[in-house]
């Protein structure tokens, strides 16, 4: 792996045929040093702050969306995507060179059955708890002890899925 360089598009393409893109990025980041990873804390900080300020970590916020009583979260997600999509499109068109992960390529995997099967299971859990992975963490941070129960269940479900995937001989995903 030490022979692979990530600075030129040619090197990237030749290595991409042998390694999943996510693995290439992982190695690229390892080379950029621990600083590149630690900077992620700042991004998480911004995201966590916003999750609380829009109150998606409260059961009622999600529940009222899912009961079709309040369009707030639909508008929130819609305007987030409407903001990010054109910017991402432009960055990729301009072949934006990311500081810690090579040329920007937002992955677009083909549709598979797992996208539907997994999302049905997740959707059921989301409806019951009113929490999804990010807001569940925010729930705990805001002092809701029951958020910890959801997070504990989440880790359990995740490891359960890994065990099932191992049994079926499906390679564990490097990133989601």
């Amino acid at each position, binding site marked *: 792996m030490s022979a692979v360089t990530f600075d030129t598009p040619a090197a990237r393409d030749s290595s991409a045929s042998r390694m999943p893109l996510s693995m290439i990025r992982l190695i690229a980041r390892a080379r950029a040093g621990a600083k590149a*990873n630690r900077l992620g804390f700042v991004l998480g900080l911004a995201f*966590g702050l916003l999750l609380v300020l829009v109150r998606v970590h*409260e059961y009622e916020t999600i529940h009222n969306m899912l009961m*079709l009583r309040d369009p707030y979260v639909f*508008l929130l997600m819609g305007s987030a995507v409407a903001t990010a999509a054109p910017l991402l499109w432009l960055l990729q068109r301009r072949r934006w060179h990311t500081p810690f992960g090579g040329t920007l390529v937002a992955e677009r995997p083909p549709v598979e059955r797992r996208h539907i099967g997994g999302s049905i299971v997740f959707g059921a*859990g989301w409806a019951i708890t009113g929490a999804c992975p990010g807001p569940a963490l925010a729930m705990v941070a805001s002092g809701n002890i029951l958020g910890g*129960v959801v997070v504990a269940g989440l880790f*359990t479900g995740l490891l359960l899925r890994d065990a099932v995937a191992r049994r079926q001989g499906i390679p564990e995903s490097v*990133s989601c």
Partner: protein
Amino acid sequence: MDAIFAERLPWFVGGPLIGLVVVAMYAIWNEPLGVSSFYGHVARLARGRKDTDWLRVWVFAGIIAGAFLGTLLQGGPRVTTGYGALGAALPLVLLVPVLFAGGILIGYGVRWSGGCTSGHGLSGSSALSVASFTATATFMATAIAVSLLLNWLLGGVL
């Protein structure tokens, strides 16, 4: 501390700001902002695995810290076992296993589909990934149907 942000941000402020965080994750690290993958790598770290992606662990930690900061700005934290209408409908001895089971469904589902509300709903959709559109439409439709069903089963208290 006085609550500076007592009211939730208007959607047209909060939504675009969240969108910019998604763009930043791609523009700086070339990675989707998918919180379920952060859980995955925290689980790896806990098992002492060498292939842990530290970026994802750091973002995970940052989310908790940021959420705590936001809570301070809202005049908190307040330690509670309240859980909205669901908490009012179920006694605590029932609520805890129900939330744990719900958590298992979330963890199992997002690991299987490779993303959640952030990974598919925000990041993948912003990247115009058809797989993410499919996943988002599926979990949205399922969650709406299950919510309405639960409310009906509990006699309309939710």
